[in-house]
C-alpha cells in the first residue's frame, strides 16, 4: 500500500512549519476534550490527523481554524504567536477548511459556485458588473489543473460527482490563497474511484506548496497520500510518525486505542 503510490512525497521536510501548535488544551466545562496536543505543518506536506470517533479530531481542527479558542497552549503561525478571535481571522490568515458538508450549491453553475462570495467585478459606466467571462476562464483553468474536464463553466455543480465537488471546493480554497488546507474527512462518503480523485487532488495541491491537514479515520486513505501521521486518542497525541516508518496495521492499532503501545514504541521513534 505504501509503495504502490506514485505521489511524490514531501521533499520539503526541512522547511520551517507554517503553523505550530504546542500543547493545546481545550476544556468544555468539566469535559477535557483536548489534553495537550502538539502538531505542526510544513508547506507542501500532507499531515494526516487520525483518530477514532471522539478522539478530539474535530475539536482540534476547530481550534486551528479559529472556531474554538484553546484553554491552554500556544499557536505559532509563520513563527509568530497567533490568537484567532473567530474563523474570519483564520481564513484571512490563509487557513481554509473544506467541510464534509461542502459549501457548494448544486443548482448553481461551477463558476458561480467557485466565486461565490468573492465575485470578480468589472466596471462598466461606473457600475460594478459580475465579470462572468473572467470567472469562467479562471474556473475552467483551475479545474483543468485539478484534472476535471468540465463540459463548460455553466455546468451545474449538481451534475458533478461527490469527489469532483470536493475537488472544486479544494481548488476554490487554494485559488483564494489558502496556505493551510484542512480537509475534514473528505473521503468518508465517497466510492473508490472518487476517493482516488480526491487523493490525487490533495497531491496536486501539496505540490503547489500548500500544507494539507487531512483528517480521516481510514488508514488506507491516509497512508496513500500522507507524509506524516499523527494519531489522536482520548484528547491526547499518541505520536507522530513519518511516512515509511509505520505500517497500516500499526496505525490501525494506534487508532483503536494503543493496546500494543509498548510494541510500537520503537517504530514511533520514542515519541509516545
Amino acid at each position, binding site marked *: 500500500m505504501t509503495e504502490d503510490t506514485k505521489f511524490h512525497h514531501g521533499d520539503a521536510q526541512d522547511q520551517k512549519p507554517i503553523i505550530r501548535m504546542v500543547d493545546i488544551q481545550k476544556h468544555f466545562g468539566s469535559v477535557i476534550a483536548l489534553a495537550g496536543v502538539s502538531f505542526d505543518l510544513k508547506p507542501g506536506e500532507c499531515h494526516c490527523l487520525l483518530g477514532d470517533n471522539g478522539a478530539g479530531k474535530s475539536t482540534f481542527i476547530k481550534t486551528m481554524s479559529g472556531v474554538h479558542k484553546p484553554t491552554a497552549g500556544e499557536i505559532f503561525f509563520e513563527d509568530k504567536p497567533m490568537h484567532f478571535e473567530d474563523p474570519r481571522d483564520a481564513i484571512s490568515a490563509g487557513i481554509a477548511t473544506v467541510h464534509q458538508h461542502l459549501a457548494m*450549491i448544486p443548482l448553481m453553475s461551477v463558476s458561480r459556485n467557485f466565486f461565490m462570495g468573492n465575485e470578480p467585478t468589472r466596471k462598466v459606466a461606473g457600475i460594478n458588473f459580475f465579470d462572468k467571462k473572467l470567472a469562467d476562464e479562471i474556473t475552467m483553468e483551475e479545474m483543468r489543473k485539478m484534472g476535471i474536464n468540465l463540459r463548460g463553466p455553466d455546468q451545474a455543480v449538481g451534475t458533478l460527482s461527490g469527489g469532483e465537488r470536493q475537488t472544486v471546493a479544494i481548488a476554490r480554497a487554494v485559488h483564494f490563497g489558502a496556505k493551510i488546507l484542512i480537509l475534514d474527512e473528505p473521503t468518508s462518503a465517497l466510492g473508490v*474511484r472518487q476517493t482516488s480523485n480526491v487523493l490525487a487532488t490533495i497531491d496536486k495541491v501539496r505540490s503547489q506548496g500548500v500544507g494539507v491537514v487531512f483528517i480521516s479515520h481510514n488508514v488506507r486513505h491516509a497512508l496513500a497520500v500522507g507524509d506524516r501521521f499523527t494519531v489522536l486518542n482520548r484528547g491526547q497525541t499518541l505520536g507522530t510518525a513519518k511516512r515509511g516508518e509505520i505500517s497500516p496495521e500499526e496505525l490501525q492499532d494506534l487508532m483503536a486505542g494503543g493496546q500494543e503501545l509498548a510494541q510500537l514504541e520503537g517504530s514511533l521513534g520514542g515519541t509516545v
Partner: protein
Amino acid sequence: MAESAQSAIGSDERIKEISPLRRALIRPELGGMVGTVAVFTFFLLFAFDSGMFTAQGAMNWSVVSAQFMIIAVGACLLMIAGEFDLSVGSMIGFAGMMIAIFSVTLSWPVWMAILVTFALCVSIGAVNGYIVVRTGLPSFIVTLAFLFILRGFTIYLPQTIERKTIIGGIRDVAEGDWLASVFGGKIGQGFFVWLGDNGLIETFERGTRAGQPVVDGIPMLLVWAAVIIIFGHVLLTKTKFGNWIFAAGGDAEAARNSGVPVNRVKILMFMFTAFCATVFATCQVMEFGSAGADRGLLKEFEAIIAVVIGGALLTGGYGSVLGAALGALIFGVVQQGLFFAGVESSLFRVFLGVILLGAVILNTYIRRIITGER
C-alpha cells in the same frame, strides 16, 4: 491507485455530447417561451378577426400583461432568494389607499403622497424580511399574516376617515403633478400621431377626437414594466449581487459559509417586492383616479403563477426574470384574449390551469437536465 485516478481524469466517456441546438434550448425560460408561442398561435388562429391584434387590442393586453410583469419580477427575485411574499396583493391595495388618503384626505401634494407611500411600503417589506430572517419562520406564514394585517388596514382606514371604501378624486389633485405623470402619464404621443397620420394605425373617424390615433401614447405602466424587467434581469445575471440571490436561495447555510450576506440579500428582496407592488398600485391609482379597498386581491398568487410558468423553482435558487416576464405575458394575453374571442370568461381559469400545468411539467424536465437533480 494513482493510475485509476489518472484514468478517471481526462474526458469522461459517460458524458454524452450535447448538440448546440439542444444546448441553446435548454434554459430556464424555455417553458415560458413555448407557452408564449402556443398562446399567440392559438389566438392568431381563433381570434384574429376579433380586434385583438389591432393597435387598440394589442395595447389592451399589453397593459394587463405589464401589470402582471411588474409584480412578477419582484416575486421572481424573491422566490429565487428562497422566500415568498403572500402580502403583495394586500400591499397593492394598501399602497393605493395610502396615496389616496395622503393626497385627497390630507391634501398633501401628490408627489409627497407618492414618496411617503413608497417609503412606508418598502419599510413594511423590510419588516417582513427582518421577521423572516430573525425568527427563521417560513416566509409563507409571516407574509400570510401581513396579507391580513394590510388588507384589514386598507378597509378600516377609509371607512373610519371617509365612511366609504373607495376614495376618488385623485385625478383632480394629481393634475400637473410632476411625479404623478411618471406613473400615470403617457410617452411617445407625437410618434403615434405620426403613425396615425401615415395610416399605419387607425384613427378615430368621428366624435371629438376625430383624426387622432386610437392609441395616443405608451402608458408609463409599460415603461415601468420594461425598466423593472431589465433591471431585474441585469441584477440577477450580470452582477455580484445576483450571484448572492441565487446562493441565498440555493442553500443559505453554504452561502453563509462562503461569506455571502444572506440575511441582507433576503431583506433587500422583500423590499424590492414591496417596491414593485407599490409601483403597480401607484400606476393603477393614477389610471383609475381612485383607490379601492379591494384592489390587488389575489395578485400574490397571480404573480407566483407567472413566476412558476417562467421556470423558477418554488424552493428557490433557480429561475429567470425573463421567464417570469413571459409568464406574465401569457397570463395577460390569455385573460384578455379569451374576452376578445368571446369565450365565456369562466373558462379563463380552465385555460390558465392547463397552461400552468404544461409549463411546469416542461420546466421540471428542463431543470433536471440542467442541474442534474434526480
